[in-house]
Structures are given as structure tokens and as C-alpha cells.
């Protein structure tokens, strides 16, 4: 029809973008087979039949700070403001499996998240909050204390295990994207997180025992295509492991997979990424593993605006970036969205920025009417073409990972980290050359910051409170019971048995996060993070 | 399959839960969509769109005094703004001089005061007007534009090379100025006089920008907005045709448009797409103009002030971001992002910067200009585009049936439409049918934060008055009087008044003096507002 020039315009993932897309570009698409209806395979247009006309996405902010008490106050405020799900960001020592009085962590306690070191802390965080009515996302470490503590709290409140709703995020992808101290090896990690999936398949059918999470990897500078490829390779890795073990029927195993992705700047690419992701998961489940139950192939995804796109300069500009990223998540059909605080490149979110994050989602939901119809972009020549293109390229990346032995092996050998590193260096180069535009940083940079914003400062006294508390808890608990529970856990870790029941028992006996984390490290040894220059 | 259970667009169009290939099967791509830069222009007026050139970032601004406004324009120019856009203050909008005792409290509010050519010269001091494109929100008759043109003459510039736009539109001025107005028929006459004059003397200047922004902000929906906008354009063309002084294609070639960008994201996108197709049909089918350049619906869009809330003002930054994106996805040529604080005060430096940043982020980081009409082909967007077009034609017809836009204004029908829309809007807000975050939903008892406030300079009016008095003293009284008498005579004779307006400005006539002549000939018109 017309000569499309492709002169050097590329998406953020390097996909050449034509100046115009026309019916010709999608003439090979078979609507029923490749797009279909929402709620029906291949789910390109959405995993549910009614999508946002039936139910809006969940407004869910990952949050937590200072102490369990302060976090509880924050959660109560968020609940009042209309938030419909909770999401625990643990502090660094919790994520690192270290007790607050561990000399290595003292300065980290209560920073960047909520410190939760015991069942008591978990109960404090959710004091007065109706966990039977909301679902909770736990950014737990593998073999960590958050999930067992949450389950025990629910049991104590009389909520049956099959009614507890929420998600444990402890997947390979995310965890290996950050350098945390005190971590087990990738294969230990895989084993223990599969244990939880198996356990939940039998005991907690409404819980998502894993959230395949490419958010943090994406923030290491990789592209949307790599993000998607890595995510799908992780799914395959988990299914392969379950298949190898053969303890739980695969359809039961994969039914409660949740997903967590980033929404980055390139608006249409992000929308298409989410559409392609749904189709890819279905193909893995249905075509590769022969699982026919369509419920197993539904990619239910939580998305979060990409922290790495936020600038320290002119922080209010981030509010605009986040607004666009949230919109991309909505047009891409996400089930749950976290809008970052605009100030997260400067400090932990203040009350003001927290409110604005929620407002951003509420404005999209209630004022822009984009939820009036399902998959409003479906059929667009550009969006359908780009969805196909991203899918194709992401399969190539999956193949690359499989060629190096799958996701766990790719992490173990440092292959993935070399990808990250190349991406980081490439990004810096593009930033310098102006191939990438960052307004206020490499474009239109001001000599002086034009405005100031309120700054959040964590309470330095939190650490003292928590150190005192854990000392008291250690004194008050039945230490013989703890020793026994930990010995049992060690035996189970050395065996092939599922580790989760033993972890639950240890948490009930008031074992500390440091004590829990020490056991797999003792059995399998620590992991050296495969990154360097 | 698709249910229509009570989900409507902001304009009341029923929205199905799903659009599929079935919904677009009657669309003939070549006939209904076509390529960008080609009829019917649904996908864009230019063949390369934002790949060739991004939309212009253009903020309507001005405040206090010409001198301070000048400082602001220079800043905006340096921040990367590629077009200037002049908001006149209230006294200028109503055509009164700064030293008129009726206006003293209004000088420098909501815009820059421009009583005389001296004010215009101060406003553009040091700005190379030959390199920028300037938008003047000038009322019908284009007196401020005459000052701008005479300034250009005095700088030795050729008017034939000057780029810019004069609003010169009767629809938008049906809203803000309630006092000191001539009747709609006089509006129309002055407006068309100016257009005719520009065709000959300032061929690169856009002599009219049909503007539905203010009307939309009265609570109209997208269908009414589009209908009124095009009915106004038709009214002007009819008038030009009736006179027959300038070939219609020459007049139409430089017409541009100005619309609001409201909250309903896809409806706004579809509105701009439908508008392009409708304008093409008007120009080609109705007036038989075949020159393709004449059929381009070139549009400047502005985020809708009426969607902004006084509560939690930073929420407006989010609303504006989405409205800007809708404008860009709809293929606008130029966009004004409001200041987030315009529900509270005139924009501060902070909010002005954020407005520009919003557009820059949409353009440079979100990559939405990477391909042309990215939504083209979407089952929903194409269906909605068709639906908006169809409903807007009906609305155009309604206006034509009552005698056209000027008549709709004179008879008061227009104001009843505004009133009904306003009352309906309030009803929906009160019942919660129309959710507004932070106002009727999730309202907080106490404002959660403060934003910086722009404070108007209470000394500004006095400075202006003194300056204008001194300016008036210096003039050659005889030449001035002769030029104004000539203007009156020409006005009464029915000739094109604009050469006489230009002459009067050359003789340093003021805005108030010229508007007094208009009122003397046509009489005062009181708006038939309804409650």
C-alpha cells in the first residue's frame, strides 16, 4: 500500500517501528486463534470474560517502614483511602534472613520496608485489618518467615486455610536480580520455593504460592523482550522441576501461578508486552505441557511502575511518568497495579506521594472511562503487530535461556547477570549519546533543582525497638521447642521431603528469621553473587 | 454477545463490553480511514505526522504586565517551547482600555493586558517573532493582531512571512466575555473581514481558529463540542461565500481549530479522528473544494480546565497527563497542558514547568509518536469514531435547522444548551454518577497538602494605567481622530474594516477606542444567558 520506511525508529526494546501500520500488517492474524475473546484462549484480550467491567484491578501498593506498628498505621490509612489489597515490602534484614541484632544489619533495620521478625510482628502489622476481606502480597524470601507467619495468623483468627487469599513472591527471577547477603544457591532456592507451591496446591488452594516476577530484573536495565523471555523461562523452570519430582499433578501445580511485571516508559510496547505474555503462558501450559484446563493458562499479573525510570531530578516529573505507566498497565489488562511514589528516587514515599499513587489509579479507574470496554486497543494494526513481534522475540530469548540449561542454571553460571550488565552499560551509553531521552536528566536539564518536595526520613529509633523486642522474644520462648523444630527442619532440608511444614512448625515455635535462614545455608553452603566488572 | 448494561461514554454513547472484528466489518479502509495525509484524513492530516515533526508544545500564558509576561515568554522559549500563545487579560478580552474606570480591578488578571501597541511591543521585546509561531487569543476583529502586525512592520518584517494564529472565533467568545460586546452578526462580519484581509496580506497567518475549548468547559459533551465547532466553521464559510470577495479555497486553506481535551480518554481520541473526517467531508462534499490542503483539520488542543479540582491540586497533574496523551494519540498539531494549579490560581513557575515536562515526557519517553495513529484499526476506537461522527452530524444539523451558529447565539439557544449541560453536570456530580476523585469520591476532610500559590501583583494595574495615560499623551491627536473617523465610516459602509483597523493602530489607537467605534455602530449586546 505504501512504502513504510523504518528509518532508525525503534521501540525501547530495539524493535523497528514502521511509520504506519495498516490492515496489511495484520492480514495473517487469525482472530479466533490468535486474539480471541477475553476470558478465552489464547487470552490475548484478557484473562477474564468481563475484565474491568466485572471488577477493577486491585490497587495495591508495596509498602512498609520503620516498625510493625508504623506499618500497621500506614496500612490502616491506605485501607481507608480505598486501597483494596496489601503488599508487604519487608525491610532488608528480613529479606536477607538476618535478625535485627545481627551486627551485620543494625543500620538496615526498618529501612526500605517493614521489619517482620516474628509472628507477633506479623500480627501487629495486620492488627485491626480484615485479612479475610483483602488479599495480601508477601515479598517473602525463600524459606522465609512471612508466609508461615501469615498462615499461622490466619489460623489463629479462625480463617480456614482454603480461604486465605494472597501471594508469596519468592521466585528465582526477582531474587537473583538483587544482590542480597546470606542467600542460598539457585538450586536450593528452586527446591524450597517448589516445596511451597506443592504444599499450597494441597493445603491453601486460594493462595498464590509464587509470583513469577520480572519487575526487579527489568529495573536492571533489560528490555521488555528480555523481561518477558526471562519470565517465561522461569515458568518453564518451575514446571520442569515439578515434573521431575512428580509429586503433584501438573495442572494442580500450575493453577495458582501469579505474575508480577514492570510497566516501563515505552507506552505501546508495555501494553503489547502484557498482551503477548498472556498468549505465551497459554502456549507453554497448553502446547508444551499439554495441560488443557484453561484456568491453568491464565496469566494474572500485578504490574508496578518502573522505579528505574524515575528521576532524582525534578521528582514531580515522575508523577507524569507513573501516570503513563499505570495507564499502560490498565490498557494491557493487568489484575493489580502498584503506582510508585513519585519521590521514590529521592526517599521512601511520604504521605503525599502515597496518596498521589492511589489517586493516579483511582483517576484512571473512575475518570478516564478507559475501563468502559475490554481491551480497547484490540484490533489496532500497530498494537496487534507489535504484540506479535514482541512475542516472537521473547520466544527467541526463552530459547537462549533454555540453551544454557534453563533459568536456574543461567543464574548459577552468571549468564543472566552478564545480560544485566550488558544492558546496564548499553543504557548508560544510550543515555550519553541521547539515543534514550530522559527529560530533566539528559534532555532539558536545569542547572538548579526547580522545586523542592517533602522528604520522608525513617525513624532511627526503630532499630532499637526491634532489637529489644527480639531479645525479649528469645528470652520468653520455649528454647527446647525451638531447638527441636530447627533440628527437624535441618533433617528435612537434608532429605527430599517438602520443607514447608517444618518451616511452619519452626515459626510457630518462634524461631527467628536468622535461625531459619541459617539452615539451608548450613546444608547447601552460601551463594556467591555472580556479578563483577 | 456484547451487553450494553448502562455503560456510557461521557457523551452518553452506549459502550459495549467488547468490540470485535464484527464491529468494524462495514468499514472500508480506503474510504473511511485511508492513509495519513490523505483523504479522509482519519489517521492524521500529515503523511509523516509526529515522525516528521512532533506536536508543538504551546502554553497559553500571560499575566500581570507586558513586561513580566515578556520575561515568562523568554523563559518558555528557552525551556524548549516552540510556539508562544498569548492569553489576554480580562480587560483586553472585553475590549476596554486599562485606564477605563470600569476595569481597574481586572487588569493583569488571567492574562496580559494589551491596550495599546506599546503593550504588545513590551510583551514581545527581544523575542524573534520571525522565528516563532504566535497564537493570539484575540477576539473577533483581531485588534490585538493588528498591533502585532504593526509591530512587525516597525521591526521591518514582511507580514507575508509571519507565522501565527488569531483565534477570531465567535464560538469561544460566546463564553467568557459578558460585557461590552457587539451582537453576533457584528462578530461574524469583523471575523470574516479579517480572514479576507489575511488571505491577501498575511498568507502564512492562520486568520481563524475555530475554538470549542471554552464551550466544552461549560459542560458540553464531546458530541456537542464537535457539532458546535463545525457549525461555527460552516457559518463563517457561508458568510464568506455570500460575500464572494475571496475564493473559498483560499480562505479555507488556513483555517485551524482548537478543542478541549476532556477526561474520557478514548472518546477524546475518537473525537479528533472523527473531526478530521467530518471537516474533509464539509470542505469536499459540501463546498466542492478539491484542493487537499483545504481539507486538513489542523488542531490545537488544551487540557480541559473544568476537569481540574481545587481539592488535592496535584491530582490535576495526572488528569492533565492523560488528556495530553489523548491529544497526541488523536493526532493534534499542538497541545497546551494546563497548570495543575489552575483550579486555584494562575500557574506558578513550578506548575508551568510541569506542564511542559508532561508534554516532553509523553513525546520523548513514552514514545507515543513512534508510529502514526497507533490506535488505527482498533475495533473500539474505529467504532467510537464512527459513532461520534454520526451523532455530531445530527447536532450540526440541529444548529443549521435553526439558522446557523450566529442565530443560535442571538436567539439564546446556545446559552440554554450551556445551562442545561451545566445543570446536568452538577446533577451527575451530586448523585455520584460522574465520579470525581477527591471531590465526590474519596473526599478527604482536610486538604492533605499545600502547593505553592501564585500571587497576583496588586500594583500591576496602577503601572499599566500610568503607562497607558503617558502613551495616550504622546500621540498625534489629529491623525488618530481621523483614523478612527475613517474606521467608523468604513464600518458603516460595509467595506472590509481591517485596513482601517491597521491604519488606526499605526496612528496608535488603543483597543478601547476601536471597540468603542464597533459598539457605536452596532450597539451593545447583552448575552441572553439563562438560569
Amino acid at each position, binding site marked *: 500500500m505504501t512504502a513504510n520506511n523504518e528509518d532508525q525508529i525503534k521501540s525501547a526494546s530495539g524493535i523497528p517501528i514502521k511509520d504506519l501500520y495498516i490492515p496489511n500488517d495484520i492480514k495473517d492474524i487469525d482472530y479466533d486463534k490468535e486474539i480471541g475473546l477475553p476470558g478465552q484462549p489464547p487470552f490475548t484480550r484478557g484473562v477474564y470474560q468481563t475484565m474491568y467491567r466485572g471488577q477493577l484491578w486491585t490497587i495495591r501498593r508495596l509498602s512498609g517502614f520503620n516498625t510493625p506498628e508504623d506499618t500497621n498505621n500506614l496500612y490502616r490509612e491506605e485501607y481507608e483511602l480505598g486501597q483494596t489489597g496489601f503488599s508487604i515490602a519487608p525491610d*532488608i*534484614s528480613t*529479606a*536477607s534472613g*538476618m535478625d535485627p541484632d545481627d551486627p*551485620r*544489619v*543494625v*543500620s*538496615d533495620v526498618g*529501612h*526500605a520496608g517493614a521489619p517482620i521478625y516474628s509472628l507477633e510482628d506479623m500480627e501487629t502489622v495486620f492488627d485491626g485489618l480484615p485479612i479475610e476481606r483483602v488479599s495480601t502480597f508477601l515479598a517473602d524470601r525463600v524459606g522465609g518467615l512471612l508466609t508461615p507467619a501469615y498462615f499461622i495468623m490466619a489460623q489463629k483468627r479462625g480463617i480456614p486455610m482454603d480461604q486465605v487469599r494472597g501471594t508469596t513472591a519468592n521466585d528465582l527471577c526477582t531474587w537473583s536480580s*538483587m*544482590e*542480597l*547477603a546470606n542467600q542460598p544457591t539457585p538450586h536450593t532456592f528452586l527446591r524450597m520455593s517448589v516445596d511451597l507451591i506443592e504444599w499450597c496446591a494441597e493445603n491453601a488452594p486460594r493462595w498464590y504460592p509464587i509470583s513469577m516476577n520480572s519487575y526487579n530484573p527489568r*529495573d*536492571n*536495565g533489560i528490555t521488555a523482550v528480555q523481561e518477558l523471555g526471562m519470565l517465561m523461562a522461569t515458568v518453564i523452570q518451575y514446571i520442569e522441576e515439578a515434573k521431575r519430582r512428580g509429586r503433584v499433578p501438573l495442572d494442580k501445580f500450575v493453577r495458582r501461578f501469579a505474575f508480577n511485571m514492570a510497566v516501563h516508559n515505552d507506552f505501546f510496547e508495555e501494553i503489547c508486552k502484557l498482551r503477548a505474555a498472556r498468549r505465551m503462558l497459554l502456549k507453554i501450559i497448553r502446547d508444551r505441557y499439554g495441560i488443557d484446563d484453561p484456568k491453568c493458562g491464565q496469566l494474572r499479573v500485578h504490574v508496578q511502575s518502573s522505579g*528505574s525510570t524515575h*528521576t*532524582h*531530578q525534578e521528582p514531580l516529573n515522575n508523577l507524569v511518568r507513573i501516570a503513563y505507566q499505570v495507564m499502560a498497565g490498565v490498557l494491557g489488562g493487568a489484575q493489580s497495579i502498584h503506582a510508585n511514589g513519585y519521590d521514590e*528516587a*529521592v*526517599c*521512601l514515599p511520604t504521605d503525599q506521594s502515597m496518596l498521589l499513587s492511589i489517586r493516579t489509579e483511582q483517576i484512571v479507574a473512575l475518570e478516564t472511562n478507559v475501563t468502559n470496554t475490554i481491551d480497547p486497543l484490540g484490533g489496532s494494526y500497530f498494537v496487534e503487530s507489535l504484540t506479535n513481534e514482541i512475542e516472537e522475540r521473547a520466544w527467541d530469548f526463552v530459547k537462549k535461556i533454555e540453551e544454557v540449561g534453563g533459568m536456574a542454571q543461567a543464574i548459577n553460571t552468571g549468564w543472566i547477570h552478564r545480560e*544485566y*550488565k550488558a544492558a*546496564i*552499560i548499553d*543504557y*548508560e551509553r544510550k*543515555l*550519553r549519546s541521547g539515543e534514550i531521552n*530522559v527529560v530533566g*536528566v*539528559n534532555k532539558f536539564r536545569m542547572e538548579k533543582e526547580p522545586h523542592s518536595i517533602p*522528604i*520522608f*526520613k*525513617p525513624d532511627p529509633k526503630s532499630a532499637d525497638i526491634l532489637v529489644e523486642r527480639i531479645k525479649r522474644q528469645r528470652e520468653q520462648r520455649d528454647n527446647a521447642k525451638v531447638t527441636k523444630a530447627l533440628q527437624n527442619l535441618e533433617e528435612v532440608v537434608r532429605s527430599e521431603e517438602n520443607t514447608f511444614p517444618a518451616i511452619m512448625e519452626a515459626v510457630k515455635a518462634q524461631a527467628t528469621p536468622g535461625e531459619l535462614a541459617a539452615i539451608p545455608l548450613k546444608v547447601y553452603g552460601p551463594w556467591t*553473587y555472580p*556479578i*563483577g*566488572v | 454477545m456484547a451487553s450494553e448494561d448502562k455503560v456510557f461514554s461521557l457523551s452518553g454513547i452506549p459502550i459495549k463490553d467488547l468490540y470485535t472484528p464484527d464491529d468494524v466489518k462495514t468499514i472500508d479502509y480506503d474510504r473511511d480511514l485511508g492513509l495519513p495525509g490523505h483523504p479522509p484524513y482519519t489517521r492524521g492530516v500529515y503523511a509523516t505526522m509526529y515522525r516528521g515533526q512532533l506536536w508543538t508544545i504551546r502554553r497559553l500564558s500571560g499575566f500581570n504586565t507586558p513586561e513580566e509576561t515578556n520575561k515568562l515568554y523568554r523563559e518558555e522559549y528557552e525551556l524548549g517551547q516552540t510556539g508562544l500563545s498569548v492569553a489576554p487579560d480580562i480587560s483586553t478580552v472585553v475590549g476596554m482600555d486599562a485606564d477605563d474606570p470600569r476595569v481597574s480591578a481586572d487588569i493583569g488578571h488571567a492574562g496580559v493586558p494589551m491596550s495599546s501597541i506599546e503593550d504588545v511591543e513590551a510583551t514581545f521585546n527581544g523575542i524573534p517573532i520571525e522565528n516563532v509561531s504566535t497564537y493570539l487569543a484575540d477576539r473577533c476583529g483581531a485588534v490585538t493582531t493588528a498591533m502585532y502586525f504593526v509591530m512587525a512592520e516597525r521591526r521591518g518584517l514582511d507580514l507575508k512571512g509571519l507565522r501565527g494564529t488569531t483565534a477570531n472565533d465567535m464560538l469561544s467568545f460566546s463564553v467568557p466575555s459578558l460585557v461590552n460586546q457587539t451582537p453576533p452578526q457584528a462578530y461574524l462580519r469583523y471575523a470574516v473581514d479579517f480572514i479576507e484581509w489575511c488571505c491577501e496580506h498575511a498568507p502564512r497567518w492562520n486568520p481563524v481558529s475555530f475554538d470549542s475549548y471554552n464551550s466544552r468547559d461549560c459542560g458540553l459533551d464531546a458530541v456537542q463540542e464537535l457539532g458546535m465547532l463545525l457549525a461555527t466553521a460552516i457559518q463563517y464559510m457561508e458568510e464568506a461565500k455570500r460575500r464572494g470577495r475571496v475564493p473559498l479555497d483560499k480562505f479555507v486553506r488556513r483555517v485551524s481549530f482548537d478543542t478541549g481535551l476532556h477526561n474520557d480518554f478514548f472518546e477524546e481520541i475518537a473525537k479528533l479522528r472523527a473531526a478530521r473526517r467530518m471537516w474533509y467531508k464539509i470542505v469536499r462534499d459540501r463546498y466542492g473544494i478539491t484542493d487537499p490542503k483545504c481539507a486538513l483539520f489542523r488542531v490545537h488542543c488544551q487540557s480541559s480546565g473544568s476537569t481540574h479540582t481545587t481539592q488535592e491540586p496535584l491530582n490535576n497533574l495526572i488528569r492533565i497527563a492523560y488528556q495530553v496523551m489523548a491529544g497526541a494519540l488523536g493526532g493534534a498539531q499542538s497541545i497546551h497542558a494546563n497548570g495543575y494549579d489552575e483550579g486555584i490560581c494562575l500557574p506558578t513557575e513550578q506548575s508551568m514547568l510541569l506542564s511542559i515536562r508532561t508534554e516532553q515526557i509523553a513525546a520523548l519517553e513514552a514514545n507515543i509518536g513512534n508510529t502514526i495513529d497507533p490506535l488505527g484499526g482498533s475495533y473500539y476506537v474505529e467504532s467510537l469514531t464512527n459513532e461520534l461522527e454520526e451523532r455530531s452530524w445530527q447536532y450540526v444539523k440541529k444548529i443549521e435547522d435553526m439558522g446557523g451558529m450566529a442565530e443560535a447565539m442571538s436567539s439564546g439557544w446556545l446559552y440554554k444548551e450551556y445551562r442545561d449541560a451545566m445543570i446536568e453536570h452538577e446533577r451527575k456530580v451530586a448523585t455520584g454518577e460522574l465520579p470525581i476523585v477527591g471531590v465526590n469520591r474519596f473526599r478527604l476532610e482536610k486538604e492533605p497538602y499545600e502547593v505553592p500559590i501564585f500571587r497576583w501583583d496588586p500594583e500591576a494595574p496602577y503601572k499599566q494605567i500610568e503607562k497607558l495615560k503617558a502613551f495616550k499623551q504622546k500621540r498625534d491627536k489629529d491623525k488618530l481622530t481621523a483614523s478612527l473617523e475613517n474606521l467608523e465610516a468604513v464600518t458603516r459602509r460595509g467595506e472590509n474594516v481591517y485596513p482601517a483597523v491597521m491604519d488606526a493602530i499605526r496612528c496608535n489607537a488603543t483597543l478601547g477606542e476601536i471597540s468603542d467605534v464597533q459598539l457605536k455602530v452596532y450597539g451593545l449586546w447583552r448575552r441572553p444567558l439563562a438560569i
Partner: protein
Amino acid sequence: MDSKNVKILMAKPGLEGHWRGLIAVSSAFRDAGFEVIYGGSMRPAEIATTAAQEDVDIVGLSILCSNYMPLTSQTIEQLKAHGKGDVMVLLGGIIYPDDFTELQKMGVSGIFIPGTPLEDIVKFVNDRIPELKKVA
């Protein structure tokens, strides 16, 4: 003395796991000819031990979490305790401007917030090579 004789230890003294900035800056230093020891996540005492063993000239710290005040001061104390009080200490990450003065008083020579061009960081160090202790 030029860049190839200068040894830099790059480390994150906190537990928080964002290493993107550390890698980007480390690579830039290496590309500029410096000898870079990429320490990654290390506690303050480990940083000091390594700095002493490797006899580095510069320690570059990266902290993306709001605990940079205690972490920086602990690291500098440890460096002094290990006889490395004379190394040049750089700090990158999310640092509030209000704290710049105090950090400089503590002994931090350069502070780099997100969005600083890498070449500015490299230039900062290049300009100060003559001040490094081996020369003095």
C-alpha cells in the same frame, strides 16, 4: 601517577540489593583505565579489610537506602581502624542535599546522586589523582 596506577574498591556497605549503579560506575572507572576491585555487597569491616589488603587508593560506596549516614560513618571508622584513613571515599546513591555537608565533614570527598553523568564521576576522580596519597 595516572589512572592505571590507581586502585579503586567499589562496594555496597548496606544489605539492600540494588547494584545497578555500582556496576555502571565500576565499568566506567575500568574503561577509564583505573584498576577496579568490584567488592559488591560487603559490610563496613570487610570493606576496610579489603581496602587494606589490596592497598587501594579510593573506596567508592553505593547506598540506595536511607541508612547512608550510619553506613558511611561506620565504613570510614573501619577504614581508619585498618590504617586506611587516608583513602579517598566517594559516595553514590540517593543522598539528601541536607546531608551533604555532614558527609563531607565525615570525610567523603565526592557525592554523586542518580542522574549524574558517568563522565562527570570519572572526571572528578581524574582531577584528583594528584591528591591521592601515593603522590603526596
